[in-house]
């Protein structure tokens, strides 16, 4: 794996500068009713082959967390943005 990523603060850097935070999921505002739903939130990921929204942290730089959309099959990064500036997320379609 090797590609470039653009930190919203610092600019374009090698991916090795960054830490991966996994796909962006929404934390429920209330406690999930069943243990299964809680388990889904805690442990399950959609793991899409295609474009996904994900968290990155500029570990070796400004240490800011930001969001990115990346095609997991090509590593093409569509955009990166601080959470406040990120385009509204489309609701995840549950598999």
């Amino acid at each position, binding site marked *: 794996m*090797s590609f*470039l990523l653009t930190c919203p603060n610092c600019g374009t850097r*090698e991916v090795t500068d960054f830490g991966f935070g996994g796909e962006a999921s929404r934390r429920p505002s209330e406690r999930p009713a069943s243990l299964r739903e809680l388990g889904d939130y805690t442990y399950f990921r959609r793991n899409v082959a295609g474009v996904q929204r994900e968290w990155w942290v500029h570990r070796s730089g400004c*240490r800011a*967390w930001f969001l990115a959309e990346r095609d997991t099959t090509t590593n093409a990064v569509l955009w990166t943005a601080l959470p406040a500036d990120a385009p509204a997320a489309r609701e995840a379609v549950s598999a």
Partner: protein
Amino acid sequence: MRRLPPQPGERIDRSAPLTFTFDGAPVPAFAGDTIASALLASGRSVLSRSFKYHRPRGELCGCGQCANSLVQIGDRPSVRACGTPVQDGMAVEHQNAWPSLERDVLALPGRVGGPFMQVGFYYKTFIKPRRMWPVYERVLRRAAGLGKLPRRQDEREWRTEYRRRHCDVLVIGGGIAGLSAALAAARAGADVVLADDDVEPGGFELATANRERVRELAAQCRDAGVEILAGGSALGYFDGLVPVWQGDTLHQVRARRHVAATGSIEQPLVFPDNDLPGVMLAAGARRLAALYAVAPGESAVVATVGDAGLESALALHEAGVRVAAVADLRADAAQRPVAARLAEHGVRVLAETTVVRALGRRGVEGAVLARVGADGVARAGSAEEIACDLLALSGGAVPASSLLLQAGARARYDAVSGRFLPGELPEGVHAAGAVAGCDDAEQAALSGAVAGAEAALALGFDGQARDLAEQRARLEAWPLAPVAEPPACARDERSGGKAFVDLDEDVTVKDVEQAVAEGYDSIELSKRYTTVTMGPSQGRFSQLPAVRVVAAKTGLSLDAVGLTTARPPWSTVPMGALAGRPFEAAKRSAIHARHRAAGATIRWAGDWRRAYDYGQPEREALAVQETAGLIDVSTLGKLLVRGPQAGELLDRLYPNVMSSIAPGRIRYGVLLSDAGRITDDGTVCRLDDESFYVTTTSSGAAAVEQWFTWWLADWALDAHVTDLTQGVAAVNLAGPQAREILARVADLDVSNEAFRYLDAKHARIAGIDCLLLRIGFVGEVGYEIHCASAHGQALWDALMDAGAPLGLTPFGLEPQRVLRLQKQHILVGQDTDSESTPWNAALPWIVKLDKPQQFIGRWALEHLRERTGEEGGVALVGFRVPSGQVPTEGAVVLDGPGGRPAGQVTSARRSPKLGESIGMATVPSALAGEDARIHISDAGATFEAVVTTKPFYDPEGLVLRS
């Protein structure tokens, strides 16, 4: 074999003779020689022994691509003799033969023949009985191998430099096509890097009449600003990153566009004994003659399927090598213009003919030429024996398309040109020259110029875009030179002789046929079963022959059989170059020098170098309890959390309430995962209304900072997290005399009324601004003193100077572990694991389910309580061992005498103060009561311990608060 008279454009410098040794014997050479060219010039034809059968092998490719010339140079194994320049005094040794290259006793099994060492032999023979495998393995590893690694770690170290290079266009391959591409792109204005694995760019044309032209092209490239990485091997294509290994530097080149001008690889032909020393690739023989003025033989037979072999034959003849005959498989061979020129020189060209057997025992003594049917068998009466000592093969070309395929191109078999060509190229990748099917030098040059201009144009450099369309049209209309498709294996009517598909791995036609017969009929399966194409040359010379055998045996077309997956690395690279320097980054506290000076035992603690003890851990622990001790705790993670919503952030991250801490007060906290499990612990101190000073464990500092900032980013609270870990030094001053020592150096009232347990105060110590936290990890009255790292040593010195008369002793990590165990203060990661919740880690009071925040871990804890009860059947308890034995940490707790495992010892020490063996363990809830008897099984012995849920020392915490 001998040195030829001076050749035009030869690479050797005859005025600079030098000497190296091969297996101890001196070998003369010239500057510019490769190891192989010098060995051949000195008359040595056997360079190595083969991998499995230990057959003698000689030079094959002449350009550093094959595995036939692997040698050992000092402690570097598997160096390619034909791609490595000679240096004066170099000590070169053979590999994989014993006792010598000429007499190798390991060659015997191969000669005996029979079922021994046929394909699958190892799998079938040595698998039973299992227990014998280690014995077999020792013998087999010795017999099959390629060179020796140095045994000592420090002798294996590599000093690799890493360089990142970003450019507009990366051209891979410095032949006529690559140079033309680089020049076109650079002249259009692009920033261009060109990587070429030879010592000078120019590629194959350096061995032809075009040599001055390519040298001129290289000069023009340099003038146009192209960075040429000569001797640089492109290892692979990784999402646009191409690592180029050049001597001691690994260039990590990231380009916006790539031009693959990687050329093609001339293929051998397959027939019995096609591995005898003296069997070479025709282009390799030509390169040896042209570049190093080496006659690879006195009398040559050339076998070819196209014009390339005819041209090599002509070049060999002109260089002074007698060409006895040329066998061309094409029916119309005589009509080719090159054939006519060969005829003018009196060289016989036999049409529709190929080589069906090599003759000779230790080297080529002759060749059998014949007309063959589609099955490769010689037609009756057509065979002719010709004496020769060089058998030069030109079995067609395979595009060196590995990088293109790694980039996402697909190879399709092109029947017209008789080869697998890379089909549609991925975005941003261009191909030029022979890899794209452009064999002719003029055609290759044009294709390079077009690819370079197109790459530049795509990036917005339009300097040379004018006649691009016309050039492309000209390129596509280029006439193709016909090539004949050779049989999978040509043979005469005689039996005997191994016909090799893969020289690296000693895989024969029979092996691949047998693999297909046994059901491994896909190329990927037969590859794994026979290891064909899996040797050091990465299938360069064996992939197409293997595909031909599988196609012939299965009746499928070459296209249907397909190629095996192209994987990096394309060129060999030392593991050390990729692994980098074997160093570990060490963190040292600002006070480290003082610990060294005091004779501390320094050990690793995560990334940190820490004082483990100062030589007497038991005495140090006692000193803390009887007078006073000082420990460097600078490694603690330290975060400053500020802002109107700082308290809210902490309330969401911790299971207890942090927003209610009064300014100047301290509270202990643990951090939980979403699964409710403990991930870290530390203290939270409120500095003022909007500021909190948070400490974390030493090893968790980085993770906690990321955890805090991540949730802060997600929740978008009005707060800010600053990591102070590196900038702040900290020491813990603890013991009965700690207050008195502090009183002597600090400008504040240290009385117990003014500075209570869990108070935080600012003060100056020896003029240094400090934050003092009165906490009690080690169980005595203690002050954790934080100051700027720059003043860490001064703080340490001031405290030691003031404390020495009162018995102040520095103490290390080990005594601290004993002291905290006496208090049953947990160490996260030691006394907790990935299943530990606050409830089963003896911290039930910390969970505040009545607070409003949906803190991290809350939901899991609530579910847990509803389903299994808080503890979930497991508890963390303290224990005493009446017999005095100190169990190993990790020892098993049994559910009764002679019972089953039910828990484990997490910590255990002998307490010098209490004079007994104490510890902590996870046990079933039923055994967690005060004074319960548990049984510990440790290294075969079982002994009894008594549960103690209260701290062993100062159970009511009176000392701490005094």
